[in-house]
């Protein structure tokens, strides 16, 4: 008999905690690189959320073999696998924008950029 009470919903709750830390970094910090790291933290937590849902207790990796009966769900794995690589590509694009912002404004702090913009208006 397999007991589903542990971790139960606890897994999802820790994932929510990770998501909120990521969101907090994105809203509360002015530094653009820190914001991108925050987005990464959020992104990985969403990945973990998907993979947590795909897990079946007592299951194994979805590579077919004769001796195995229970496989975890392969569909979220596919979605997240591609999302990770797309994630790094878009992160690179974001970082490239940060580099250009640094070159134009000589700072990557959001509030300082806003000040410069207001003064030039």
């Amino acid at each position: 008999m397999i007991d589903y009470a542990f971790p139960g919903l606890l897994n999802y709750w820790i994932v929510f905690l990770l998501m909120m830390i990521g969101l907090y970094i994105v809203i509360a910090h002015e530094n653009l690189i820190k914001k991108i790291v925050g987005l990464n933290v959020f992104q990985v937590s969403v990945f973990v959320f998907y993979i947590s849902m795909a897990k079946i207790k007592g299951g194994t990796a979805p590579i077919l073999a004769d001796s195995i009966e229970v496989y975890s769900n392969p569909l979220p794995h596919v979605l997240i696998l591609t999302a990770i690589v797309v994630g790094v590509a878009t992160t690179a694009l974001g970082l490239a924008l940060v580099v250009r912002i640094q070159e134009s404004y000589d700072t990557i702090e959001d509030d300082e950029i806003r000040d410069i913009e207001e003064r030039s208006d």
Partner: protein
Amino acid sequence: MNIEIITSDALNVMTLLFMAVTAIAIARIRNLFAVVMLSGIYSLMGATLYVILDAVDVAFTEAAVGAGASTVLMIGTLALTSANENATPNKQTIKALIACTLIGFALVYASFDMPLFGDPNAPIHNHVVPRYLNDSMAEIGLPNVVTSILASYRGYDTMGEAFVIFTAAVGVIALIGRGRREKSANENMADANNVMKRKIVLRVVSKLLIPFILLFGLYVQWHGDFGPGGGFQAGVIFGAAFILYGIIYGLGTLRKALPAWLTRWLMALGVLLYACTGVVSLIKGASFLDYNVLASTPTGGQHIGILLVEFGVGMTVFASIVTIFCAFAGRAAADVNKVSAKQRSAGHD
């Protein structure tokens, strides 16, 4: 109750808690170099967690991409910007904390409607997935179900993802790939200044490692149908070998081995190969990306089709990662030269 299940659950929760601690450290530390390294560790723990949760293909990708490639790119950005962030005003911090706490509680409230972790009767396991698990061996003929879904059942999605990566790399080239540097002269000068020239251990060890990394990349590419692996992972691993070469021996040397035009062509050829595989099956009278008609038997056709599109994905991912790295590194080299030129002229004055 099975001891294996208990250990895997305990490991699962502990890894998640470690990730939470790392994330809090990322939020609190203001030295951006430390933050970037911590975010690499965070990704690596994510990869560990995916292994515990049976997602071996995903773990592979996360370890290569999250912990490897994106950390390198972020350090490259730090070299071009600054390594410290300003303190955030307190008022803003409190507002953000309140907002995040509220959203967090809303999510926890919503989670009460979710099936428990590991429940085999959850709705997510009961629609299309039984078909993949039961019939994919007869329809596709590959043991790795993740590869079957990725390249065949959901081939459209994957083509879209490959195009997103291609587009992102083109965007990076457009933003920082050109301009502000007088090309190869700069790269050579940066090589001469390269501190890595003096690190003999790194040079020797990397020389030993790179062939094996490349070999492993090829294995992951061509064995992805039977074990964990495939084009996405192989592309990143292959790219990582060249990035390592570039870091240790300098951008100019890397560009001699792998010229800029070549990576740009490979980037486009990869997605073209993917799309052309679809067009060939159209010409042969089936629907777009239906590989059954590519060979005399349906499973034979599936094998050829999957091999081709995975190769296309691998090519695009590899070329895009290397192109993106070179764009950042080239920018940094130009920057170093500008600074040293400034210092020199200041010295003359």
